[in-house]
């Protein structure tokens, strides 16, 4: 196949303890470490492996968001992507908007495979791949832990509640990846230098001809109710007594 598109979202790093802003408008991002959504790194790694096996010609990383996402796209290029596309948007978009934007890029690039993370760890929506596949009228293989390509078909093992499900899809299509699919490579310094020369195009939503619609309104963010630290027991006997006390054993 010619081209694989991979989505890279800039999110608060998974190690950060997220705090809600006091005015409820969102979470604190000032001075907070931002990274590529961990699932997206796995998506990119898979695309790179497919290319390295000679099963694809080009890997294009795409991010929709603020211009700071260039940083994450550069990291993607350093990992080995061939070029990057940033779709500029300052406003917060819904997954359906982002799906429409990806669909426009799929058309523009005639991409045959889109690999995405199964969810972004900020909104935890887990919707983009499914929505893109729907409006594209193509198959989706979500939560992938194993991907095998053969011609214009992909056999995908999916992590589902019952265990591991395998489906076969015809390409073009969308795959969303789970954590156990692969372990992303580390970026080496020379690759970071090389990545600076790789193309990073910026497009606007208007240029892509996508109309974003008002969707679900975010009313307010609040901190979750915290669980309180309980009691410590000294030994197993103390534990059994505490459980009996609560009527749990």
């Amino acid at each position, binding site marked *: 196949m010619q081209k694989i598109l991979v989505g890279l979202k800039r999110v*608060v790093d*998974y190690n950060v*303890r*997220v*705090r*809600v802003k006091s005015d409820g408008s969102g*979470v604190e991002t000032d001075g907070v470490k931002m990274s590529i959504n961990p699932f997206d790194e796995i998506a990119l790694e898979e695309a790179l492996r497919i290319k390295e096996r000679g099963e694809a010609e080009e890997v294009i990383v795409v991010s929709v968001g603020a211009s700071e996402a260039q940083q994450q796209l550069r990291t993607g290029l350093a990992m080995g992507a061939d070029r990057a596309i940033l779709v500029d948007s300052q406003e917060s978009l819904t*997954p*359906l908007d982002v*799906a429409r934007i990806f669909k426009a890029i799929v058309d523009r690039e005639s991409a045959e495979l889109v690999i995405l993370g*199964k969810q972004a*760890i900020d*909104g*935890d*929506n*887990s*919707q983009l791949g*499914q*929505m*893109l*596949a*729907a409006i594209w009228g*193509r198959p*989706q*293989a*979500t*939560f992938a*832990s194993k991907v095998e390509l053969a011609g214009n078909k992909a*056999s995908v093992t999916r*992590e*589902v*509640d*019952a*265990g*591991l*499900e*395998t*489906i076969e*899809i015809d390409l073009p299509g969308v795959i969303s990846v789970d*954590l*156990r699919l692969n372990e992303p490579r580390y970026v080496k310094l020379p690759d970071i230098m090389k990545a600076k020369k790789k193309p990073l195009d910026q497009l606007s939503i208007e240029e892509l001809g996508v109309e974003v619609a008002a*969707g679900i*309104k*975010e*009313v307010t*963010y*609040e*901190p*979750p109710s915290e669980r309180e*630290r*309980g*009691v*410590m027991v*000294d*030994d*197993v006997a103390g*534990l*059994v007594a505490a*459980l009996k006390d*609560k009527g749990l054993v």
Partner: protein
Amino acid sequence: MSKILVIAEHDGSSLNPSTAKTVACAASIEAAEIHVVVLAAAAAAVAGEAAQLDSVAKVLTVEGPENEHALAAVLAPQIVALSAGYSHVFGPSTTFGKDLMPRVAALLGVNQISDIMLVLTSHSFKRPVYAGNAILTVEAPADKVVVATVRIASYAAVADGNNAAIESATVDAELPDHTRFVGVQSGATDRPDLQTAAKVVSGGRALGSAESFDIIYALADKLGAGVGASRAAVDAGYVPNEMQVGQTGKIIAPDLYLAIGISGAIQHLTGIKDAGTIVAINKDEEAPIFEVADIGLVADLFKAIPELTEALD
């Protein structure tokens, strides 16, 4: 008034408990008329179970060989066809619902709300974001169908004592053949289902091997508990993936949760926030799991767990 269509989750022969919890969420919307739809190769048994669920006014069945396996690409167009006249279409936030509902929403041209944990009004809801470190109130447009998944750990199943009418429905939808089911592999277990068990014992990386997990199973069997694991334990291959608890595994709410040799990373804690009582056994007194545990014991699990299992005789 709201008219709500709930998509039943099942394995072809019995209804998944996630459905009764999704119905409970739907029933918390004022003046809701709730219908459950069963798409299956043969729907009678599953529909019979769904008809018993309280708050359900009607069960619809859509039968056909194409519905033998739950493929989102095949189910979604049928649900879109069925959704006419409904104000809401709900599914469970299990891998079944997460795969399916966004596809339904996008075909309908609307957004989808993930993981409803609380209904405020027919169009406003609370849901967790950032691995549960923030709770977001969202409002869906009043003039469009609301497509959503329900965070099943937030709801107790509705009781069953009902006898709702069962009607077969036909849908006019073009179904794709670009997606084919090949097979499913599950670590069959006689233990209680992780997602609905009243008690769950989970082991972490500290167990060190698949064999060592035997002491976790032994304790679980003594308690009549389901067994879970941290991501680290799954990644290391000690247990299969379907046992993972957390942000990217299963979100559970048992009455009793025992975290054994699990450090308590936020991604793990997201999965157990709604547990009744959390017990932590860890040899490191600084482990973050103790910040949320109701009962904590600093101990070497290889000594403490066999001792505990024995003490429960």
